[in-house]
Structures are given as C-alpha cells and as structure tokens.
C-alpha cells in the first residue's frame, strides 16, 4: 500500500485553471482532493463540494451543555442558599435566564473553537508534504491523493487543466 499522503500536486497560475482541474478530476472519479490557496475563495469550496463542516455539531453540543450548566448552577446554588430577595420565589427564572444565556454562548463558543482546531488538526507542527511556499504567495495548488497506478492519469488531467507544474509527493 502506498503512503496515505501519496499523490500528485499540481500548481496553477489562475483560479480558473484550478477550478477546471477540480471539476475534471472529480468527473474522473478522484474525490480525495485538497486545494492549497493563498486566498480563501468561495468558488473553491463550491467546486470541491465538501460536505457541511462537522464543527457545527460541536457548537450545538456546546450550547446545549452550556444551557444545562446554567440551569443547574443557578437552581442548585439558589437551593443551597435559600435567601428570599425582594419577595421573589427562590427559583425565579427571569434572572436565571441571563446566566443560562451567557453560559450557552460561552460553552458554544469554546467548543466551536475546539471543534475547529480538532477538525483542522491544528496546531500543526509539520507542514503537509504537498505544501509549497508559493501556495502562500501567487500560485494555487491542488493535492490529489491517489494510488500509485493512477499517477499517470492524474498527471494528464492536471496538465490538461493548464497546470504549470506537477510533482509527486509522499511515496
């Protein structure tokens, strides 16, 4: 078996050529693509047709956890110190909802950050072998992970979409 990161990297001068290469490779059945771009661009997301980000599940769990914590914290502490203030009931929701809201946002935000780092595998000590400093400057890269036997076909597809340069990585 080849190395999991084995594949070909094409570099492109123009965004349009990158998008063209993505659509040709996807058309030929190559799904494991990763774009390396100096600037974020919505057209790349659309071309790659990635499924919705899994981070939103983390956000939802964080929010639900935060809301629960808020209710438990406020209700339990009021029951532990049952002081009647201003003639209000011991458990009175109007002020509790503020704490509930704050903790919902806090936990949701923290878990979103955590989920983002986890899913993006950050912080990253080693750069991926497909990376090239030019991909942070003025070139777009497309990393196609594929079997060694497909290298020639992928090279042809990349060149056909006007790739300036195609190289192998991670054998």
């Amino acid at each position, binding site marked *: 078996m080849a190395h999991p990161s084995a594949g070909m990297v094409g570099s492109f001068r*123009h965004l*349009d050529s990158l998008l063209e290469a993505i659509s040709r490779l996807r058309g030929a059945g190559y799904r494991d693509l990763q774009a390396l771009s100096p600037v974020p661009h*919505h057209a790349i997301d659309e071309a790659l047709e990635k499924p*919705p980000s899994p981070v*939103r599940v983390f956000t939802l769990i964080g929010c639900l956890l935060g809301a629960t914590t808020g209710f438990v914290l406020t209700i339990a502490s009021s029951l532990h110190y049952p002081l009647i203030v*201003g*003639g209000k009931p011991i458990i009175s929701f*109007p*002020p509790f*909802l*503020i704490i509930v809201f704050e903790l919902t946002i806090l936990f949701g935000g923290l878990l979103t950050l955590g989920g983002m780092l986890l899913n993006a595998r950050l912080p990253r000590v080693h750069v991926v072998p497909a990376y090239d400093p030019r991909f942070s400057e003025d070139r777009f890269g497309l990393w196609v992970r594929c079997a060694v036997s497909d290298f020639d076909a992928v090279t042809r597809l990349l060149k056909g979409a006007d790739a300036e340069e195609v190289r192998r990585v991670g054998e």
Partner: protein
Amino acid sequence: MAERWEDRWTQPSPVSPGLMRSCFGLMAVGVAVLLAGLVADPARTWQIYLVNFLYWGALAQGAVVFAAIYHVVGAKWGPPIRRLGEGMAAFLPVSFLLFLPLYAGLDLFFDRVQQLNPQRGAWFDSRFIFVRGGLGLGSMTVLSLFFVYYSLRPEVGAALERGLRARHWVYGWIADAWQGERVEMARSERGMEVLATGVLLAYPITYTFMAFDLIMALDPFWYSSLFGGYFFIGTFYLGLAGLTVVVSLLARRGHPGITTRQLGDLGRLLFGFTLTYAAMLWSQYIVIWYGNLPEETHFVVLRLWKPPWATLSWSALVAAIFLPFVIFLSRKAKEHPPIMLATGLLIAAGLWLERYVLVVPSLWHDETAPFGWLEIGVTAGFLGAAGWSYGLFLRYFPILPLARTPAAAAPLPGGATAHE
C-alpha cells in the same frame, strides 16, 4: 461570470404596471376607509393610523439605516441588498407627509393623558410633541434622501452618457451639472460617507424620541428609560425583515443579481437581530420584574396577562422571536428563498402586532380588541402607499448598484474583472 454593467440598465424592471395599479387601488381604499372612520369613530381611527405610521415609516427607515451601515463599514457581500434598502427611502417623504395629519390624533390622545396626569406639564404637550417629532422625522428624511441621491448620481450620469435609458426628468434632475465619471465618483464617495454617518447618528436619537413621545407617553404613568433603545433596535430588525421579503421574492423569481450565498448572509444577519431584539426586550422586562413597582409593572401586566391583549402579545413574541429563532438554526432554511420569504413575512407580521399592542392598550379600554374593517382598511392603505413608492423607485433604478464606473471596471490583465 460578471454581468455586464450596461445590462443592469437595459433589463426590464421587476415591478409590473399591474402591481403598481394594485398598490394604487389599496391606497384609494385606505383613504376612503380613513375618511369614513374619522367621521364614525375618530379615536379608533387615529390609534390604528398611529400604529401603521409607526410601522411602515419605520420599516422604510430601518432598511435605509441598513444601507447606511453597509456603506460605513465598507461591506462588500451584497450590493443588490444595499440598493434594495436604499430604495425604501422612496417612502420616507410620503411617511413624513403622513405624519402631518397625525397632529389631530395626538391632540386627542394627549388631552386625556394631561387630564389623568397633569404633572407631565409642557414637555408632553401635543403641540411640542408634534413639532419635535416633525423636526426629527424631517431631518431623517432629508439625510436619507440625500444619501440615496449620492449613491444614485454617478450611476445615473454614466447611464445617460451612454444613452442606456430614455431621458426622463428624474434622471435629468439627479445627474444635473454632470462633471464626468471620475470626478463624480469621488464626489459621491465623499457625500455618501458624510451622509451615511449623519443618518446613523440621527437615527437612534429620532427613534428614541418617537418611542418616548408616540408610544410611551400614551400611557399616563408608565416610563422605561430603555424603551427608546428597544424601539430603534426593533425598527432596524423590522427594516431587515422587510428587506428579506423583497430579496427572497426576487431570488425566487431568479433575479441574476441575488445569489443563494447573499440570501444566507442576510438570514444570518436577521438571526443575529432576532437575538438582539429579544435581548432589548428582556433587559427591560427584567428591570421591571426586579423593581416590582406598580407604575412600571402595570404596562407589562396589561399586555402579557390580561385579555384581550395577552393573546396578541404572545402571538407577536412567537412570530417575531421564537419561531424565527428555530427556523434560522438551519443553514439550508436560510438559503431557501420560499422559507426566507415566509420567515420575513412572519417577523414583519409579528412586529406589526408588536406595534399594535404597544399603542392600542394604552388608548382603548373596552373588553375586546378593536379589529375590523377600519383597521384592515387603514393598514391596506399604508401598505399600498409603501408598495407604490417603493415600486416607483424600482421602476426607475436598477437593483444592482454600480461597483465602480465602467471605465474603472475594465478587464484587468489576466482576464479577471474588477467586480464588487
């Protein structure tokens, strides 16, 4: 990828003459019902007139404030949405004119308030309220119209230079003393900068006064210092909801200028303001709840727990806050025009009910809420006037604003096109 600039001017307007005629018909119905109502029951007529005045004028102003914020922060995500917001300024002069007859109604309401609570004195004299309200609304209208004028001028001038549309006195007036694209673009940028800031500074002040004078003061004893903030945030929320309705209608008909992504972004913004609006409501409620002073609580208790208003208030909260919150949690819903259209209409309807329960319970003391042909007719009239003036704007001006002058938007080396 880029639509040609010229196409924006030569494409037909999305507003059909039939739609304009229906709006005109609604307006005629509204005027007839209003006159009949003034003869039959002036107090009831003026209170629904006030509700609708606070609703439709605020909707238009909220949308213009959105356009001003869009300009001030240098946003780039939805130029057609900015233009659609600017267009609602077309209703502002009409709304200002509709404020003038309201003097008779204010006189009626504040006579009673002064009798019940004479300590309020001259500050809440109906004449003083009318004059300061008129000054505030007048200056907001002038600022908003000039802001939109500066946004339209370079585009109208450039289109006239190329003969893209037949000359018309409106275009001639807007592009009067034209000095060429380059000069005009720079001038328009400066003008918009100053006027957008002006609109944003005048807006909270004017709308705080509107909230205090035209809603809060109707109750002889109630006060809440946060009410102004609540009202202008609610108004901005209303403006965004109105914009969402228009944008989703155009997106549903497949207008080339509006993308799914822009609709989704507008949905996210609206979602944020659902929470902001709820927070403004809550921060007032909690202070009143804590203090538990009868002169503060009676206003809330009457609206939330006493028939016939309780049902209406809770419906307003469900329509303007709870349901939109649940719907907007879904990303797909925010990018789906029919759902966005329905949610925009839901919020708009909820906020109409909100204005209704803010105003009417202070003035109406019967067992049942006043709602019949009179209320429907007056509301239809306002809807017609707002739709007609907005339709007029959309017939004369394209929905996609100019990013840069066509000369500046010439192809860059490498085939890319400069595009906002």
